[in-house]
């Protein structure tokens, strides 16, 4: 085991980023065009990074497996984006956003990165407004804000319930401007299938065109992965169907360390599962918790409809357990509290697998018009899916996998352990610790993409000026292409009896049961014997029809599920190694008397970063020690 150095700059936390920006080497405007950068993924992080590096003058090649760069899953974020503007004078500041984020992450994030995130949060809002992002406004024409979980100030900017869509369209439009300016070459329908490393540096990628099946090599001076998170390892999650771990997992297999893989976020307000064939879980924005009250009946055998149950027979369990934050307790805490009630038999709905989210009190207080203005599109979506009208019947919600705090380990400059390979947005691990606060994912994606990476990548590229470049004739590219062809041929010739989706569903069930909202040594050990057995069966018995030289979505999925199998094992190993509870990682062995997470700062105030050893069952553990100099380590309390 080695101790990783994140290369965090010296000096007071307030000036680290400024000082470092001055200390980093620059690439002059005339020399930027001599460098090429590959960006994989065009969500908020990828599109903003590609656009900004294009503006700066780099030659950017951007890749998306979607049919358009505008379709990345960032688009589905509903609630909003945080910033420390303090436009409402309610006591917000860069320091408070920093502090809330470190505390919300249960003291498992890197202080210096979080402070930088809070610093640039305000620039993001400025940039987005200038692009024409139609944020909500007050009647005086100024920007409106709302509150989100884990905060006692209003610092969340929003565009109805479609904030992610509007921010992504802003980034996509900026990217489109650079495509027109020919600084960015955009490859649609193109999936990255391997990363190419020559002499220890990332020098390119191998891709497959999803329509023609063509395998192609692309070389560049640096590679940036902005490929999102891996919640779909659970099969059922709020992620889009195509979200996967393959880009970061294949980078991991080439030497990039994977940090805190077991830190996953289970979002409290998704729709409960309805039946076996369900393909995904739909999220209802956390913003609903601003006005909705969460409750279950007090009586185990409650037979009345929700409207007929008087207040004294309702258990508003978040308000009861966490009076200071109430329904706006952070996500991990709210999710676990709902699970506790449902497990105890108090669940509502035909399968007794949900809790109520009730707007009747807010509707009475504010009027239906106000509720409609704030949440109308979410209410419509709910009704479309469930056939129930939430203005009349309380919504039924239950936690669902939503976001992954873990990801590729990166240093302060967002560089992975492979020189020249950078990871940004949800694909890296750095800013959210063991639990991400609401409205912080959009902030981090855009912080990395617009402001951090375009500055730090120059520090890597500057010393390479004038040095010989690697092109796609290097044997490592041919080798990577061969491996991709071979894997496709293997899937197509297995000709077993079960579909890819079957194995994905089975894998998801294991991971959800044993590495979901609660983990235990016993359960994790069980998962670690079941996952490799199922993987062996998948390899021998999967059925993928058709060919590799045409659009073949089963073949695409087979490769992604193969990577999920290996990742799932690493997640369980990581969860087993972390003998404490923190944020979204709740080990039943480590809890306080009243069921709260029991952290162990003496032994676990570190990031666990795993190195690929060639055998998925024997990863090598490394650590980065976390030091808290500006925020005092404390037990989180939202009571």
């Amino acid at each position, binding site marked *: 085991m080695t101790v990783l150095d994140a290369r965090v700059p010296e000096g007071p936390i307030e000036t680290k980023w400024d000082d470092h920006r001055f200390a980093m080497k620059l690439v002059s405007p005339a020399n930027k065009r001599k460098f090429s950068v590959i960006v994989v993924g065009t969500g908020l992080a990828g599109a903003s990074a590609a*656009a900004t590096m294009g503006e700066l003058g780099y030659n950017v090649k951007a890749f998306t497996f979607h049919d358009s760069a505008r379709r990345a899953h960032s688009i589905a974020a509903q609630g909003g984006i945080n910033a420390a503007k303090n436009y409402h004078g309610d006591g917000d500041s860069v320091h408070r956003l920093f502090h809330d984020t470190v505390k919300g992450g249960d003291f498992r994030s890197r202080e210096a990165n979080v402070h930088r995130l809070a610093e640039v949060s305000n620039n993001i809002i400025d940039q987005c*407004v200038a692009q024409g992002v139609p944020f*909500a406004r007050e009647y005086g*024409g100024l920007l409106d804000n709302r509150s989100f979980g884990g905060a006692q100030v209003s610092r969340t900017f929003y565009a109805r319930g*479609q904030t992610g869509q509007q921010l992504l369209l802003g980034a996509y439009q900026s990217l489109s401007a650079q*495509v027109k300016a020919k600084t960015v070459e955009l490859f649609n329908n193109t999936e990255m299938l391997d990363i190419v490393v020559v002499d220890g540096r990332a020098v390119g990628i191998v891709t497959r065109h999803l329509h023609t099946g063509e395998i192609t090599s692309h070389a560049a001076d640096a590679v940036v992965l902005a490929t999102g998170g891996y919640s779909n390892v659970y099969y059922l999650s709020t992620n889009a169907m195509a979200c996967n771990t393959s880009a970061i997992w294949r980078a991991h297999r080439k030497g990039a360390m994977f940090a805190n893989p077991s830190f996953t976020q289970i979002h409290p307000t998704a729709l409960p599962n309805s039946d076996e*064939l369900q393909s995904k879980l739909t999220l209802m924005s956390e913003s609903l918790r601003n006005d909705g009250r969460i409750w279950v009946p007090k009586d185990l055998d409650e037979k009345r409809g929700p409207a007929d149950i008087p207040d004294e027979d309702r258990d508003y369990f978040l308000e009861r357990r966490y009076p200071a934050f109430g329904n706006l307790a952070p996500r991990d805490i709210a999710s676990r509290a709902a699970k506790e009630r449902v497990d105890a038999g108090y669940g509502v709905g035909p399968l007794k697998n949900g809790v109520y989210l009730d707007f009747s009190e807010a509707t009475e207080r504010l009027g239906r018009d106000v509720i409609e203005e704030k949440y109308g599109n979410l209410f419509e979506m709910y009704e*479309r899916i469930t056939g129930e009208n939430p203005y009349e019947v309380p919504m039924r919600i239950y936690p669902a996998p939503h976001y992954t705090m873990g990801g590729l380990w990166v240093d302060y400059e967002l560089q992975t352990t492979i020189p020249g390979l950078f990871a940004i947005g949800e694909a890296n691990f750095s800013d959210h610790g063991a639990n991400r606060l609401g409205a912080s994912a959009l902030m981090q994606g855009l912080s990395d993409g*617009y402001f951090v990476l375009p500055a730090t990548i120059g520090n890597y590229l500057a010393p390479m000026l004038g040095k010989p470049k690697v092109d796609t004739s290097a044997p490592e590219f041919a080798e990577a292409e061969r491996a991709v062809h071979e894997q496709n041929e293997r899937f197509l010739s297995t000709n077993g009896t079960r579909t890819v989706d079957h194995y994905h569903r089975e894998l998801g069930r294991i991971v959800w049961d044993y590495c979901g909202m609660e983990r235990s040594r016993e359960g994790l050990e069980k998962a670690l014997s079941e996952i490799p057995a199922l993987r062996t069966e998948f390899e021998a018995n999967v059925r993928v*029809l058709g060919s590799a030289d045409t659009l073949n979505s089963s073949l695409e999925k087979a490769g992604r599920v193969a990577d999920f199998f290996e990742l799932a094992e690493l997640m369980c190993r990581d969860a087993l190694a972390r003998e404490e509870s923190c944020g979204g990682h709740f080990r039943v062995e480590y809890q306080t008397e009243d069921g709260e997470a029991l952290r162990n700062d003496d032994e676990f105030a570190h990031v666990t970063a795993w190195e690929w050893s060639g055998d998925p069952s024997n990863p090598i553990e490394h650590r980065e020690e976390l030091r808290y100099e500006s925020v005092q380590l404390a037990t989180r309390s939202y009571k």
Partner: protein
Amino acid sequence: MNLTLRVWRQAGPTAPGRFETYEAKGVSEDSSFLEMLDTVNEGLIGAGHEPIEFMHDCREGICGTCALMINGQAHGPAERTTTCQLHMRTFSDGDEIIVEPWRAAGFPIVKDLVVDRSAFDRIIESGGYVSVATGSAQDANLIPIAKDSADIAMDAAACIGCGACVAACPNGAGQLFTAAKLMHLNSLPQGQPERYERTVAMVEVMEEHFGSCTNYGECEAACPKGISVDFIAAMNRDYRKALSRNRRSA
């Protein structure tokens, strides 16, 4: 419920296509249309047949990927609903359902129910943005915007770029998409400096790829986000103004 599907199958862009008939049995009314197709595909793979390729991703009505003509209607019979949010309770036991890809010359077929909508990206690249380099923006609250202007911009910006407007239009016209993208930016102060150049550029690229608008209004009826045809009128006004400005400056 049990349903009979007649699905358009086409092996590639230039291959001849045909309708194939499939039985969907024991469909739950709580499942979505795409979950019903998932189940049909599992059955096809089990029987040794290649599954139906169709476009989908977020399955919550926002990414704009899914796109099916269902019984001749873009996104099917439910109003203001994307294909992925269409649930089977809309149909009845015994129904025959015809499933086709978007039908429009501007969206060539890739395979089965998958089409190529890259013409939309070409329209945006021609001018659908505000030119503002990262880091050059002033404080966000220095640009006050009346709430009703912001709301109009948001109404236009809600477009998900699915292409139902084009698919529903007898002319295969791209006016509603283009107008929504244009009027999002043209109704905001940030969009003013490039307003007229943007309008001309986007309209011209639109006309290269799509048919002409003759005011059928099918686009608004098919739009899952309820984008209003009023934006087309506004786009036409801006386009005429832009042309007269060009004449004046010539």
